[in-house]
């Protein structure tokens, strides 16, 4: 394979699909072959994956769904807002 020509741009453009595993077989093998020879794209992929981990982790300290009751004061304030 002649390698990095043009493919750095493609690899980076289709990274999300590659990681989602929604790329077609042929594109996928081309991708893998490129990653084998291109440290820049490997590095980019690592940092892109870390970016996703960081963003996902940012939402995971969330007050547990369902279990978090609305503070009583807020319930009252909301109900009061109905009054004309």
């Amino acid at each position, binding site marked *: 394979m002649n390698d*990095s*020509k*043009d*493919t*750095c*741009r*493609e690899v*980076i453009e289709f*990274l*999300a699909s590659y990681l989602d595993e929604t790329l077609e077989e042929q594109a996928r093998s081309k991708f893998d072959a490129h990653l084998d020879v291109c440290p*820049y*794209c490997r*590095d*980019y992929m*690592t*940092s*892109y*994956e*870390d*970016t*996703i*981990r*960081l*963003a*996902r*982790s*940012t*939402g*995971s*300290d*969330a*007050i*547990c*769904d*369902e*279990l*978090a*009751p*609305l*503070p009583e004061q*807020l*319930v009252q*304030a*909301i*109900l009061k*807002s*109905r009054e004309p």
Partner: protein
Amino acid sequence: MTSLSIEESELLSALKRGDSDAYERLVREYGGRLYAAAYRVLGRETDAQDAVQDAFVSAFRALDTFEGQSMLSTWLYRITVNAALQILRKRRNRPERSMDDLLPGFYEDGHRKNPKPTWSPLSDERVQQEETRELIREKISELPEDFSNVITLRDISGLDTEQTAQVLDIEPGAVRTRLHRARQALRTLLEEEYAT
């Protein structure tokens, strides 16, 4: 055609009649989940409470026009997330960065311009630190809104592509494209922090 369960239809009729108990039931039954959703977008309890309050106020006003084309819970959820995004917009206190500056550039031959030094994978511990979370929210707030909203809903809130498209009223294809761009831009903003 209605998507409502019997229980939701009954509740909706009672709400439309102006039944106070129904209003209280609505707030108590759905409030917790909406609070959690708003909190995920905003990361702060007081802001999340404001979003939930704003959402119920809008929902009460719009009840007359709600015909049950979606589930009541889905409808409330959309209103709440949009209320949270509005608060997020008001909270922005950093200059917006241009996407052109944050997306990777390429030479004619397809090679990337100025690849920065290596980025070593971050430890779980580092990823989960409170200050890391704050940094991520801050950096996301520097992205243009079309992009920050999508990454906030998809990666932070954990909505899927379809749900995100519905909440933002855009096409699923636009969600996918903007998400990829937003992650790339955020990656560039984080490069200073994490590239070694």
